[in-house]
Every structure is written in C-alpha cells, then in structure tokens.
C-alpha cells in the first residue's frame, strides 16, 4: 500500500460534553491540494490544530508520510510546515532573524543558502533585514510561507491562509500553491471561502458541526455529460425559444432578456440547438454553460445533511 502524504484516522476532540470534532478520517495524496471546507465553527481549525499538535487529540491518529505522530513525534513534525491562521512573527526582529530563529529549530540543518533561496522564492529580498513590524499584511503572509517551507517539508498545512489578503494577494498565493503542488508538495488547506477553495483544491472535504459529511473531487462537480444550464445569446430570444420548443423536447427553457435565453441541456443538445437556430436564420452570438459552482454543491450537500438529521 502506498503511503499517503497525510492520513487522519477517526480524529475526535471532546471538550466537556461538546464534540467539537467527531470521528473525522481522510487522507491527502502526494502532490495534491486538499481542502477542508465548512462554515465557521464546523471544526476545521480544531482539526488542523490537532494535526500540528497545538491541540491534544481526544482520540484518533495522525500519520504523516507513514510516520505516526504519537510514535515518532519529532520525525513526523519535521515533515510538515504550517501556517496557523495569520502567521505571527517577532515584530521587533528582522524577517531574516525570524527565519533564522525557525531554521535553528529544524531537525536537519537549514543552511543560510536555503534561507536566502526561500526568501527569494517569496520575493522578500528587499525587506529581509527590515523589522517585521514594518511589513504589510501581504508581506507577512509571504514570510509565513517562507517559514513553513524552510525545512523542505513534504506536507504544507494552511489554516485560512487567504484571510486578510487583498484579491491580488489571494491570486498570487493561489498560483504559488499550484506551483508547489506541481513540484510534488502536498497541501492541506482550510477555508470558509467556497469560491476560493474551488480554484485552489483538487479534492475537498465538507465539514459540518464537527462531522465530515462528504469528500468530493473537483472533477466530480463538473461532469462533462451532465445536463446543465446553458445560456444562448441571440438576436431575438423570444423567436428562438419558440423555434426550439417546436422542434425538440426540452424541460426547462426560459427567456432571460431580449437577446438571451437559457435551457437545461446536456453537451450533445447544445450542438443540436445551435444548428436548429442557424437553419432558422437566427444569429447566435454566444453560448455559455453555467457551471454549477462549489457553492451550489456545498449547499446541496449541507442541506441534505440537515434533511437526514431531521428524518
């Protein structure tokens, strides 16, 4: 059996009588970006903090690259780099000193060359020797990435990494994660920003009230031959709708505006309608498939969860 980059087995956290995390299991493969998705209070942060040993587990095991955290603590911890919420630094020290501080704590020696390499990677060369209190939030976030990567971990753990970043920063951060994953790094990332996760992850787990209710891969959400809502842009939408209704049987077709109508149809159907319109001398300016977003899917799944509970 191939080892997973991270394997979490029946992770549980109980405080008092409250189950914050309830029997959560999942695994992250090598080179994969795996998301933990859920509303605030669903237990994402608690799960991440249990994996990085900031919070004690009530029950369950964490295995990193085949190393059990309970058996070989140091080796397992050495395999991961993490940013837990906003990365905080010693503000009275320079960025370089901060990195040096964490480099000193690594099991394997981190050379000055490596520190410089990482600093270059996150584009902080110019401010490396300035005190961290002068850094912008974006710069601190990049310094956070630098400290997580210093010791060449095989697993990167990020808790709400885009919190407080501007759109530009978020985009840079995302591109950066994809580059790292491309190089074979595995990433576990949590967020409540659904659209953000959709762009970032290969697979994701949906959490609600401490329970894992669904694991899905991004491909699943965009199955090619599934019937989807398609918007046609034409010169006269009412006439076009009449023509389509007359010729083929479609379930939900409606006029959106003078020049747009939408129809629920699969891939093959799009071609059929297009040919039909053209042969009836209706100009087609554009055809757009409306992708079901992760958000729709998320609500679909969480609503199911609620219904099951009611039953």
């Amino acid at each position: 059996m191939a080892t997973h980059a991270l394997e979490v087995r029946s992770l549980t956290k109980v405080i008092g009588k409250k189950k914050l995390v309830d029997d959560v299991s999942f695994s992250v493969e090598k080179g994969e970006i795996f998301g933990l998705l859920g509303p605030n209070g669903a237990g994402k942060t608690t799960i991440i903090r249990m994996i990085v040993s900031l919070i004690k587990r009530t029950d369950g095991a964490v295995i990193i690259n085949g190393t059990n955290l309970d058996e070989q603590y140091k080796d397992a911890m050495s395999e991961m780099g993490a940013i837990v919420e906003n990365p905080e630094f010693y503000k009275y020290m320079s960025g370089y000193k901060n990195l040096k501080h964490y480099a000193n704590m690594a099991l394997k020696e981190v050379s000055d060359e490596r520190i410089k390499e990482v600093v270059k990677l996150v584009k902080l060369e110019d401010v490396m020797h300035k005190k961290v209190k002068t850094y912008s939030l974006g710069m601190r976030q990049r310094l956070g990435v630098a400290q997580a990567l210093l010791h060449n971990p095989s697993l990167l753990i990020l808790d709400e990494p885009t919190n407080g970043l501007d759109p530009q920063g978020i985009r840079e951060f995302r591109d950066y994660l994809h580059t790292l994953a491309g190089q074979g790094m595995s990433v576990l990332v949590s967020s409540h920003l659904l659209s953000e996760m959709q762009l970032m992850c290969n697979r994701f787990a949906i959490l609600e009230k401490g329970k894992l209710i669904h694991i899905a891969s991004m491909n699943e959400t965009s199955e090619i031959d599934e019937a989807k809502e398609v918007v046609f842009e034409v010169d006269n939408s009412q006439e076009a709708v009449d023509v389509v209704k007359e010729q083929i049987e479609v379930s939900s077709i409606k006029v959106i505006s003078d020049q747009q109508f939408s129809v629920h149809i699969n891939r093959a159907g799009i071609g059929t309608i297009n040919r039909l319109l053209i042969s009836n001398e209706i100009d087609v300016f554009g055809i757009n498939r409306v992708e079901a977003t992760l958000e729709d899917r998320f609500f679909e799944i969480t609503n199911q969860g609620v219904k099951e509970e009611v039953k």
Partner: protein
Amino acid sequence: MISLIRNELMKMFQKKSSWIYLIIILIAVIAGGIISNAVAGEPDEDWKATMKAEVEELQKSADEASEGEKQYIQEQIQQKQQYLDKDVNPDAQSNWHFMNEVVYGVTILVTLLSVIVASASVSSEFADGTIKQLLIRPHQRWAILLSKYISILIYALVLLLTMIVSGYLVGLIAFGNGDFSAKIFEMAMDGQKEAAVGPQFFLKMAYYLPSLLIITAIAFMLSTLFKSQALAVGIGIFVLFVSSTLGGLMVFLAEKYEWAKFVIFPHLDLTVYALQDKILGDVTLPFSLMILTIYYAIFMILTFVFFQKRDISI
C-alpha cells in the same frame, strides 16, 4: 537544546527593553555611588578621639538620666566601646564598604527586573500569537519551555553580574581600593555582629541567589498560566512586594502557630542568615533551604505539566 536556548537569548537581546533593564541597573549603581560620596563628607582622621569624647559625653548624661533612659544610653556606650576595642572605624569608606552597604541594596532592582522578564517570557508569546509558530517545530513542548526558563536564569545572572562589576568599579572610582577583609559591625536582631566586609558582601550574594531563583520560578509559572502579558507581569510584581509584608506577618504568626514556619514567605529572603543564625524563633538555614526546595519543585512541576497539556487555541 543549546540551539533552543541560543534562540531564546537572541529574542531576548533583540528586544530593546532587555538592554534598558541593564542600563537601569548601571544607573542605580552610579547614582548610589554619587549620593553616598556626597553624604560621606571628609573622613575623620582622628575618629578614635572623637568617639572617646562621645562615650564620655554619654557617660555624663547617663548619670543624670532616669532609670529607663539609663539602660538605652548604656547600650549605646557599649556599641561605641566595641568599635574602640576592636579598632573598627564606623565611618570607614572603601569600595568594599560601598558594595556591602549600597550595591547590595540594588539587588531589589535585580529581582524586580528578573520578575518582569520572567513573567513576560511565555505570556508575550501568547499575547503576540507567536506561540503557535513556536510549538509546531520538531521539539517537545517541555524542551521549548525549559529553554525559555534557562534563558531567563542566564539573563538574571547577567543582571546580577552587571550590578556586582559596575558596583566594584563605581566604588573604586568614588572611594578607592580598600581592604577586602576590613572588619565591620553589622546591626542584627541580637546585637552587633562582627564580620569582614568583602566576605560579608559575597555571603549576602550567596544567600540572595536561592531567593532570586525561586522568585523568578514563581514569575515564570505565572507567565505560563496567563495569556495576557500585562496580567502576568502585574501579578508577578504584586507577589514580589506582598511577599515581604507577608514574610513579616509570618514572624508574628510563627510565635503562635507551628504551620507558619512552612509558609514560603518568611524563607524568601535568606540574606537575614548573613546577620543571624535563626529566624522565626528556632528555624535555621538548612530548614529554610528545604522549604524552598519543596516549593520550587512544586512550582516547576505545575508549570511544566500545565504547559505540556495545554491546548493552544489563540
């Protein structure tokens, strides 16, 4: 472990406050030197004659005084006679006299500043949120905590050494080099105790070290218990000041109740043993040391067990 301690010391000395505290010690010692130099005035060459005259003066007034006053005057005469008999100049000045009388007083500042640094040590990591980056490293929690504790001890020793070295130098400049083993009398509860000035100073320092160790241990424990740096430092200083008051209170309680001897406060200041052999009636130095050791062990165990188990959720 050594790299962890080096890290903690780096953080400590990157903070401006750590340097300011050292400067405060220097300023206190220098100010002490200037003030005692100004107060001292010209040394009396013929102090024996002056003192003899004083004794005769007292003798005369004793003849006329009432019974109650007579006893008090007799005691004074006795004290002064001792200086004459043993050939000890009560107004003698040298760097060692300065060390024993003035510089020794600066230890209260060393304690205070050590308490401030110790109680900020862990709580500041919580307050700044840096604790979560610190504890996700491949090191056991207790090792990280221990490195912090050792770095605090090192800093406290640096403060103490700064005090001693600067005290010696300031004394040397202000009063010149004196006899290390010059005889002095120290006022104690049971009369005057004869001692050599230099050894007496270092004896006090030796007795001061256990106090410093245990007070910083209390501050360090508070530092791990509280997430707020201000709260930890505030309570640390409060305990420091209240302890001497409570220590005094225990002296009275000890006359009536046996348990008062097992309370930590009267044992915190061991320097009294430099002046007298027993406190609280019949308590001796080994007993005090034993009490302190027990408390120290309890504080340390509480600190480390609590920190090891704690959930970091800030």
